């Protein structure tokens, strides 16, 4: 079942399960929330007292024969006008401060929740990220958290106010003149029933429309992405007619919702006119029988206007509630995902520097149970040695690096033991373990835009430190090429740099971290000879005094390696030094010979 379908089965009721959890993020701002709720109450009270001012004015001064009451009518009316204006400004003040308070609370909750989720994501195992595409997680962190802030600003602010207004008006109407209220009830009850029916019907339609719209857009997107296939199969006509049909289905689904809305929304306003008519019908009889004052009747009409406008808005609030329920369910699902075993509560600085003794003991591993990636692999790298991993792609080379970093656990997915300095990986604090390694990828993964940040990452480093590393990595010259130096802004995907240059920068990144062990994936692309020489010099500095595990594509690396491990389909098939393996004339010798035929060493074979 797709995630969307799953989410749609969740209703607003699910929200109650999460209320306590959401409120825990309010924390010390609880008093502000309370104050805002009190402010809303007061606001509703002021708003509801406005018609009473009108009523008082009409009964005391305006209805013929009532004027006077011992007070000058003009004076009294002016005072009432001022009172009315005063009430309005009181409402303005209350509404403003309440909005500020609720937004403050709502936005703080979002901010805290985001931070919490972000910190939690950091501690989740790599496997979690394998199964959750980036796009989906981005939606969680930026959009779903926003849906929760709507809960405070929209539902709590105007929703609470609307609710209070409706309840207050109904209460006042009932106490002012119970008989007239019966007439109003005669309109309101069917209307309430209709609202409920509308909500049910329209949410089913909304769901259908969302599905159809997603289909229309997915179709368009596929045609853009697969445009060369469409063109080469001359399928334009067929695609067009399919799209027209999809688009028409969507149009028709939308029209049915428009039809429903066109009935519902005007019905509310018609209902208010009918209610006014009914009140006048019965009220006029009561006034003529002297059972009702004229002022009360007018105030009654004023209240009716206050009653109907929030009804429509309340139906909207239900949608927001439902959205918040879905969002919180998804968010809390992430927060309930268990963290990486071995991840410390407080990641610290590197405490000890490992000697760099690596051992793989009969390691077998599979990402998926039925597709083994490594089979019974054993090797040992002594401190300071360089081991080169060689083999067709898919033979398990990068998996070895991932396992070393503790990205995946053998437990449950494989067997054997991996040791660093004689200690099984499971016994290491994960952050301590990872600080013993530098992972150097073919491609420099970019964070932010500035060169500086991409070399130093998120740890503050002085410019001297950075330049020193850049010099050693033979990347200083390339940074000096930019007038802004370390502050140079890289474009998306770093396309102003060649692949070789990006590798030099990732060397610098590793040198800044200065770990005892290197996990290096050499660049495979064609590299010009100048950059190639720079890479050779940088590699010397990098390997100096460090243990290294290199996924090797360069001749010099394999020739100088202390041992070469040749992998095929997850098995270690050959091992030894370069000349030994050449003499054996096996897989390694062939790999070596074909690579030399092309340029220096321009590519690995896909198998």
């Amino acid at each position, binding site marked *: 079942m*797709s995630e969307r379908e799953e989410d749609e089965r969740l209703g607003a009721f699910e929200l109650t399960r999460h209320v306590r959890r959401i409120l825990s993020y309010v924390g010390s701002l609880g008093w502000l929330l309370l104050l805002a709720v009190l402010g809303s109450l007061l606001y509703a009270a002021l708003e509801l007292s*406005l018609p009473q001012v009108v009523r008082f*004015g009409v009964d005391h001064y*305006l*209805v013929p024969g009532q004027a006077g009451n011992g007070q000058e009518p003009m004076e009294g*009316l*002016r005072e009432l*006008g001022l009172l*009315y*204006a005063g009430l309005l400004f009181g409402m303005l003040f209350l*509404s*403003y401060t309440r909005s*500020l308070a609720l937004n*403050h609370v709502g*936005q703080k909750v979002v*901010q805290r929740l*985001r*931070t919490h989720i*972000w910190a939690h*994501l*950091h*501690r989740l195992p790599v496997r979690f*990220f394998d199964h959750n595409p980036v796009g989906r*997680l*981005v939606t969680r962190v930026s959009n779903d958290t926003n849906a929760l802030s709507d809960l405070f600003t929209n539902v709590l602010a105007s929703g609470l106010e609307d609710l209070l207004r409706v309840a207050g008006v109904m209460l006042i109407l009932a106490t002012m003149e119970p008989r007239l209220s019966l007439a109003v009830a005669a309109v309101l009850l069917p209307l309430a029933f209709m609202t409920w029916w509308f909500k049910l019907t329209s949410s089913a339609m909304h769901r259908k429309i969302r599905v159809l719209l997603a289909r229309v*857009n997915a*179709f*368009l997107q596929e*045609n*853009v*992405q*697969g*445009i060369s*296939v469409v063109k080469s*199969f*001359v399928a*334009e006509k067929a695609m067009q007619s399919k799209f027209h049909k999809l688009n028409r289905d*969507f*149009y028709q689904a939308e*029209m049915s919702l428009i*039809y429903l809305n066109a*009935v519902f*929304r*005007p019905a509310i306003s018609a209902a208010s006119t*009918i209610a006014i*008519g009914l009140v006048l019908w019965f009220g*006029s009889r009561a*006034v003529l029988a002297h059972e009702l004052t004229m002022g009360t009747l*007018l105030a009654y009409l004023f209240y009716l206007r206050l009653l109907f406008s929030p009804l429509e808005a309340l139906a909207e609030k239900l949608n927001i509630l439902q959205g918040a329920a879905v969002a919180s369910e998804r968010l809390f699902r992430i927060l309930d995902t268990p963290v990486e075993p071995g991840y410390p509560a407080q*990641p610290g600085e590197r405490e000890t520097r490992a000697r760099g003794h690596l051992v793989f003991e009969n390691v077998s591993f599979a990402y998926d149970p039925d597709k083994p990636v490594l089979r019974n692999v054993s090797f040992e790298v002594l401190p300071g040695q360089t081991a080169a991993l060689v083999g067709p792609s898919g033979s398990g080379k990068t998996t070895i690096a991932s396992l070393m970093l503790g*990205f995946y656990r053998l437990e449950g997915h494989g067997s054997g033991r991996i040791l660093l300095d004689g200690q099984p990986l499971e016994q290491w604090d994960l952050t301590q373990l990872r*600080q013993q390694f530098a992972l150097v990828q073919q491609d420099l993964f970019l964070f932010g835009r500035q060169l500086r940040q991409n070399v130093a990452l*998120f740890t503050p480093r002085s410019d001297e430190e950075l330049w020193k590393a850049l010099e050693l990595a033979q990347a200083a010259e390339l940074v000096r090429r930019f007038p802004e130096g370390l502050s140079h802004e890289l474009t998306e995907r770093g396309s102003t740099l060649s692949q070789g240059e990006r590798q030099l920068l990732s060397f610098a*990144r590793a040198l800044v971290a200065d770990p005892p062990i290197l996990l290096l994936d050499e660049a495979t692309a064609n590299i010009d000879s100048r950059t190639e020489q720079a890479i050779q010099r940088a590699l010397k500095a990098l390997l100096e005094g460090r243990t290294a595990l290199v996924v090797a594509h360069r001749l010099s690396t394999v020739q100088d390696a202390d041992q070469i491990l040749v992998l095929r389909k997850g098995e270690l098939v050959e091992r030894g030094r370069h000349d030994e393996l050449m003499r054996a004339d*096996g*897989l390694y010798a062939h790999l070596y010979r*074909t690579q030399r035929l092309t340029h220096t060493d*321009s*590519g690995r*074979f896909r198998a």
Partner: protein
Amino acid sequence: MKSGLQTLLTYQWKYRKLVLPGLLLLLSSDAGQLIAPLIVARIIDVLTAPQPSQGAIDRLCWMLFGVAAWILASRFLWRHFMFSAARLAEMEIRNRLLEQVLRLPSAYFTRTRTGEVMALATNDLISVRTALAMGIVAGFDSSVLAAATLVIMAWMDWRLTLWTVLPFPLLALVMAVGLSLSYKRWDAVQKSVEHLTEKVRESLAGMRVLKAYVQEGGDLEDFERTNRANYESNMAYVRIDALYQPAIVVLAGSSVAILIAVGGADVVSGQLSLGKFNAFMAYLGMLTWPMIAAGWMVSLVQRGAVSMGRIQTMLALPAEDAGGAELDLRGALEARHMTFTYPGAAAPALVDFSFRLEPGQSLGIVGEVGSGKSTLALLLGRIYDPPAGTLFLDGQDVLEISLSSLRRAVSWVPQEAFLFSETIEENLRLGHFEAAPDELRRMAAVAALEEEILEFPGGYETMLGERGITLSGGQKQRLCLARALLKPAPVIVLDDTLSAVDSESERAILAELRGALAGRTAVVISHRASSVRDLDHILVLEGGRIVQQGRHAELLAQGGYYKDMVELQELEQ
């Protein structure tokens, strides 16, 4: 080219059969809304008259019910008409977007990201639709309603009208200032959301690097900064937005306060009836909405016009070349000293590339990643144009053959298997809609796919993609192969078609393929010797140049790259 606003109006005019009655009905509903308070005023005046008549009141009440029904009917109908028109226009624009996508030259898609096209079809189309449905309606409605309300009020008592509308200029000022300020701040909020999203996307994509370098702490601090900036921009927006909404309500309400003081005095002095006093109160309430709607409408139409302009720009781009000769091609294929460079690339992908195939002959092209071996496939279907006088079909320069007859003559299995989220059968029939069912099955069998298809719950009717099943890489490639084989074309190009297929299936497919390709000119591009060994002619490419050519046995005898490749691949098995 027309401006965005003009285009919007063109669409409105195009659906005038719906729009004009819609506007009339809108007027009629406005009229009903204006009349209702007058009736209520009459009722109150009758009630406060010296000799009130219950019969007259009842008649007026019935009128009120009638007006309610009238408003209901006209509001229902105008919504129906106006919204239908907007949705029809939306549907039409969306159709035209797809048609344009299908017509544009490939060059457009190399410089445009999918997301940009999708943004036109989603965000921009929504603001166009909103402008068509609500912007123009709201503008018309609010100005008519405001003008009519003012006229009626002035007709009842012009002096009181002047008094009570005193706060309105201030209201308009607050609206204008508030709107422009809140827009600016709303933009800032949107920007901060973009920053946040980008930050989140980047860190999630680089999570493995962050973890490997234990940068979680620093990354969290960086995230916190973006997060706080988002909070602050939101609060800055709220500080304006929360003020300006209630300010409108209060300013509008202060008209009522003036009414009580000034109008009340008129009632006491007998210049104004109590019914009219009440009607004034109702009309003042009705004036608030047009004031709010005016600003809202301007922004909706503005946004709609900008979006319409963007869509219009894309729709106006020139389509792919439609000229050239309509030919019935047999499949003689020739390249003469072709040198081709991709647009924007520094180095050529193919250099001095020549070969010649008679109809029914087969050609293999082998070489490493990046050696240029896929380029020929893209040039043959003119996804990219080759240089003039270098590539010929049946002796005719491909540039002079019409795109449709050229593409109908060349069937292609792309390197990256691309399938549509439709049924397996619909995917297979992409190039030959009328194929007979047993022909369909035969080609699926050649691609060693028939058995697997029948094992799926829906057989050939099984949906692929998000709404159906996900195929493995090898299955996708084999489906693409069957799709290309089914297309009745004299030339077929297989571009690294079996790279994700396991070696056992590969052998089975290669054995069957020979029969299926019989009589067709075939170009087989591969990095595996096993795929090309039985072909009539083999080219070995390196850096875009042909370095070896001949039959399998000849190339083996020559030694060199081809021989090494064959030996290595045997070892890898």
